[in-house]
């Protein structure tokens, strides 16, 4: 291999990469805000007694879980403006697409942990005279969030990685800036390696935290 590396040409263009990373982080945080809240709502609806509520929500969740994220994003960017005649900024569109995707995955995580809330606790809630809303807020929610925390974090960091997909529809995130830079400088190896390291530097610590939480829970359970 006779290739002379030139990482300096990438570092000279550090500015755009850094801006890209900020957009990526913004997408991730906003999508997680949607995913964590909407996901919980969806999880409650999917366990509803009424099929009229349950079926559409199930369909929504399964559809987002069973199709590639890239087609969801492309679909969102092309079809939503045509169907609903709304034109939002590209970052907002990216946030909505990623947020809905994450909500579907988080709903599954919440559902498993909501089902694990002991029946007696809910009965105790009734006995104490809490109304259904209070029971969800004070009994179900805290336990569900605690139990599903590792999965929620894993999903959250997953969306951080999936957010690279919005580069395909020209949102100027880290991946997009990396692609542009690689073309401009003719230095794909250096650029993509550094972009990969950027992503890795953010997601690795979080996955270590998830691992720690899981080990601690196993230790507490045994």
């Amino acid at each position: 291999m006779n290739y002379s590396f030139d990482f300096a040409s990438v570092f000279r263009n550090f500015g755009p990469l850094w801006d890209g990373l900020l957009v990526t982080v913004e997408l991730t945080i906003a999508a997680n805000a949607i995913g964590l809240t909407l996901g919980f709502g969806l999880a409650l609806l999917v366990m509803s007694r009424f099929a009229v509520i349950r079926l559409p929500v199930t369909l929504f969740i399964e559809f987002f879980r069973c199709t590639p994220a890239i087609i969801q994003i492309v679909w969102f960017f092309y079809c939503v403006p045509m169907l609903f005649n709304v034109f939002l900024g590209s970052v907002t569109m990216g946030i909505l697409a990623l947020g809905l995707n994450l909500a579907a995955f988080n709903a599954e995580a919440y559902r498993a942990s909501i089902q694990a809330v002991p029946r007696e606790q809910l009965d105790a809630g009734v006995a104490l005279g809490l109304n259904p809303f209070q029971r969800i807020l004070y009994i179900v929610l805290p336990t569900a969030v605690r139990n599903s925390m590792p999965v929620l974090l894993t999903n959250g960091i997953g969306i951080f990685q999936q957010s690279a997909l919005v580069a395909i529809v020209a949102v100027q995130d880290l991946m997009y800036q990396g692609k542009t830079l690689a073309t401009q400088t003719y230095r794909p190896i250096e650029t993509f390696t550094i972009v990969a390291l950027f992503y890795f530097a953010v997601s690795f610590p979080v996955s270590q935290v998830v691992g720690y939480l899981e080990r601690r829970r196993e230790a507490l359970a045994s």
Partner: protein
Amino acid sequence: MTFDFAIVLKFQHALLLGLWTTLKLTLICILLGCILGFLVALARTSKNAILRGPSSVYVEFFRGTPVLVQLFWIFFCLPLVLGVELSNMASGVIALTLYMGAISSETFRASLKSVGREQLDACVALGLSPWARTANVVLPQAVLRAAPTLLSNCISLFKESALVSAVGMADLMFVGQNISNNTARPIEVLTAVALIYFVIAFPLTRAVTVIEQRILKRLAV
């Protein structure tokens, strides 16, 4: 606005060809990725630090970066690094196999851990060679326990395979985007493509649930 879903039928041939590429790519990568994943899982649980170190770095790196970045790296950089031309299919297979290897190795590692320490001691007592121990005692149990998660990994891979469209491989996603751009009918075409993916992935996710319950029952006995 009017919909014209008949337009999708006009292009069914191209879409089927794309689907075939997607399926071929997915199946090849599942096969190679599972083998790689099992070997990497063995390496990561070995006592030898020379095996453990690099395999851990490999797994963490591939799990910690977006698949899109991995694909771009392999499409644009690997030919430069190796100094050889790689076909689209070859790069796609390499990228997705490495990804599948990384995620399935974690699955195998968890299932290897669940093989009881006593069984390994029993192997020693029976005088089995390390090879016989791995192939006849560890592997069957690891595969059985890993099966549901492994199957979900396969479904993820099927979905992630749509990313190769971004580097110009003519898979289902790529064909769909092409048709939608040329006919200016994104709603019909992209929805149809999404439905094709859904129709394949959804029954598989149901199957995972069923298999999981069966295996849990079997292991409980």
